[in-house]
């Protein structure tokens, strides 16, 4: 009798042990990489959904890809375009033909030669409906032969006259095409490995052939990605680290503990509740990225059809209070739609030339703004908010969205407006906002490439991201001018006029500019953070 019980217990423990042991090889014990002399351990985001350049649409994915691949051009620490796989490039006088001259002796990480044909293959692949690249539109639309309605790779006007020359024909002048050539989606990819492995090529180090400063040596899903120096990279001498380990930590508190425990040298996800105690700490960094946190007032709803109402609601927001107190200084108060970092087509910062150098909304003078807002409400026929319907503000629950919503509730109360907050789960929030099924909602945009068109065109009447349903013929006309001119001065003027109209009409309500805030050990040297929200560790070093 006792024996049977023993057998039973034994059997049960064996079952558990069996289940446990079958996991041994997979992830945990096989996970150690050989000890490298100089290894940097960083956290720039959770497990990326994909590291296939054509399929990626996430910032952290792009950040990882930029360590593993190099495009025709790169963006240097100064924010300027620099030679990458192409050592020189030029555009024809009409701006319609761009020619890139590749370096001598370029090689893939598997030792095969990298030629201009690899770029032809990679760029056409982005346009392949079978590949279904989410960013096809964003990156390929300036290229002749690209039709967003029916994707056809063979029609795309990219060619390789010889192994070292890559030529692109554009459908119109695109002064910022160089920025696109440095964009993570536009990296070359190797046809041989993709033909052999399909979409799965980008999931395992054995098949992940790349051409950048580093090559992937290990990817344990949800745990870490390790990359080692690529000896075949043309500028390998400038790479000082032996390896970089990207820790795929999902939880900000976990990332923070790991940083404090010195298991990670840099973390991107800092818990917001720790920020007050970190201010002033030299390891805590805050830096601009190209992006704006804004609100949509649905222009198709009766209550928001009048620009005066939209403007009043905009002016009633104390942006400094929102950015500095509610968002704990991790955002910067926004007086314009286009914030710091965006380059003006004519050179310099776009923001410096906006509205004659002044911000559209005087963020330092909230009291006056509020008075103006009350006046506008009265002019619109709602003195003290009388007769204005109750409105609903829709947001998802993350970051500072709820505190901001609660602030808006108070702020708009000053105008006599009653506002309800409605929280919607993320997966449902995006389609709801896109379909215009809301009254007021939060929104935000972070730039993909450094040209103002990338953000200001969101308000173009037919843009897929025009969630506020703002439709203004004059605005559209200015954007059309900017799209069809090769003259930087004319283009700059048109884009600034577009922003003038946007702000005058309050087509959307900018609240704050995005920043990245992160913790980084002082022993990391020679790394930099770019306004795209990327950290560049490829040429970094570790101080002893």
């Amino acid at each position: 009798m006792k024996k049977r019980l023993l057998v039973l217990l034994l059997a049960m423990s064996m079952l558990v042990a069996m289940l446990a042991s079958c996991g041994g090889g997979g992830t945990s014990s096989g996970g150690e990489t050989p000890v490298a002399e100089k290894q940097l351990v960083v956290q720039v985001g959770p497990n990326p959904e994909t590291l296939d350049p054509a399929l990626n649409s996430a910032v952290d994915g792009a950040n990882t890809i930029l360590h593993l691949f190099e495009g025709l051009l790169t963006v240097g620490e100064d924010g300027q375009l620099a030679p990458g796989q192409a050592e020189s490039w030029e555009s024809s006088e009409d701006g319609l033909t761009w020619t890139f001259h590749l370096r001598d002796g370029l090689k893939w990480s598997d030792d095969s030669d990298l030629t201009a044909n690899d770029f032809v293959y990679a760029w056409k692949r982005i346009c392949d409906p079978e590949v279904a690249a989410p960013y096809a539109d964003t990156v390929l639309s300036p290229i002749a032969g690209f039709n967003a309605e029916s994707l056809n790779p063979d029609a795309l006007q990219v060619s390789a006259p010889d192994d070292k020359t890559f030529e692109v024909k554009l459908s119109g002048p695109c002064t910022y095409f160089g920025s696109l050539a440095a964009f993570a989606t536009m990296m070359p990819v190797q046809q041989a490995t993709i033909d052999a492995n399909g979409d799965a090529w980008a999931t395992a180090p054995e098949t992940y052939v790349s051409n950048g400063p580093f090559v992937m040596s290990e990817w344990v899903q949800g745990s870490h990605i390790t990359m080692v120096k690529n000896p075949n990279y043309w500028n390998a001498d400038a790479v000082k680290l032996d390896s970089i380990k990207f820790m795929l930590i999902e939880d900000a508190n976990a990332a923070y503990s790991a940083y404090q425990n010195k298991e990670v040298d840099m973390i991107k996800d800092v818990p917001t509740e720790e920020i007050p105690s970190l201010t002033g700490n030299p390891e805590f960094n805050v830096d601009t990225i190209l992006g704006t946190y804004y609100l949509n007032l649905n222009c198709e709803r009766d209550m928001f059809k009048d620009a005066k109402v939209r403007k009043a609601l905009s002016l009633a927001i104390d942006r400094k209070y929102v950015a500095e107190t509610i968002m704990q200084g991790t955002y910067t108060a926004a007086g314009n739609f286009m914030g710091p970092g965006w380059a003006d087509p004519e050179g310099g910062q776009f923001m410096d030339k906006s509205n004659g150098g002044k911000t559209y909304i005087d963020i330092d003078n909230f009291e006056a703004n509020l008075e103006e807002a009350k006046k506008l409400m009265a002019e619109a026929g709602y003195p003290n908010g009388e007769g204005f319907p109750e409105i609903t503000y829709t947001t998802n629950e993350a970051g500072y969205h709820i505190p901001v919503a609660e602030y808006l509730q108070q702020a708009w109360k000053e105008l006599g407006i009653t506002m309800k907050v409605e929280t919607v789960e993320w997966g449902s929030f995006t389609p709801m906002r896109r379909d215009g099924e809301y009254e007021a909602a939060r929104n935000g945009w972070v730039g993909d490439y450094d040209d103002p068109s990338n953000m200001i065109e969101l308000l173009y009447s037919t843009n897929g991201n025009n969630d506020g349903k703002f439709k203004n013929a004059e605005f559209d006309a200015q954007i059309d001018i900017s799209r069809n001119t090769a003259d930087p001065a004319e283009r700059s003027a048109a884009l600034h006029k577009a922003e003038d109209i946007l702000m005058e009409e309050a087509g959307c309500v900018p609240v704050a500019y995005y920043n990245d805030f992160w913790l980084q050990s002082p022993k990391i040297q020679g790394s930099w953070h770019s306004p795209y929200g990327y950290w560049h560790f490829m040429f970094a070093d570790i101080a002893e």
Partner: protein
Amino acid sequence: MGKYLLKRVILAAVTIWAVATITFVLMNMVPGGPFLSEKAISPAATAALEAKYGLDKPFGERYLTYLKDALHGDFGLSLKQRGRTVSGIIAAKFPVSAKVGGIAVLVSLLLGIPLGVIAAYKRGTTIDSVFSVVATLGIAVPSFVVCTVLMYFLGVKLGILPTLGLTSWKNYIMPVFALSAYPTSYIMRLMRSSMLDVLGQDYMRTAKAKGLSQKVSLFKHALRNAILPVITYLGPMVAYTLMGSFIVEKIFTIPGLGGEFIKAINGRDYTMIMGTTIFLGTFMVFMLLIVDIVYTIVDPRIKLK
């Protein structure tokens, strides 16, 4: 027994089919889709994506195709983790969760049963009270609190345990503790109350009267009769614990399956939702079957018909 097993297997298949069907219907009713992001993807790209994954087909056709493929063991490609199959993701992640969870199950059995027996035997004493307080705490304190407190003191303040990954045995201590706190406490309480029941039975008095030693009567006669409720609880508990916990895995950065359930739903990764649900369902049904068989071994009066 053989006939019984056959009946159970058929019933299990029906159960899993029902679970799969309900999940398939519900997940298609939820608004949103796998290819939505903050930045709109062009209609052409969305159409291409939908065509690639067969989402452009009508509901009924998709359902039938899915069932047919699933019967052939093909659970399809993840819609979010591009280039990876659902079976591949489960095969890579389940063992990690199962290893941590398996240790946690063992710990809760090895601690929960003896402590429960002792508490029952020493009922009314200080030991019993102390155990009862500990067990209540273990049940009442949610795992994310346990995780955070452990992480803060052992990981950050004292720095004696690593806070992420599963690279050495030390990495297992905190997650296993967090995972086993609840089941250990629960088993302890179950064991204590059912043991008290048994100890009051006539046959226990008989055992004592015929001069059996304390140890023999307690562990041979009483334990065997008292352990049935624990076995009942063990079925679902083992299934859930081996599947991994979303919270524990997120906090300790364990690349297990627990997080995939939540991520699949949040991301509307339809094939992953189906795959993980069917996997959990099958495992659960299997565990319940094992529990039934174990009953007959522990208590020969129970017959499976």
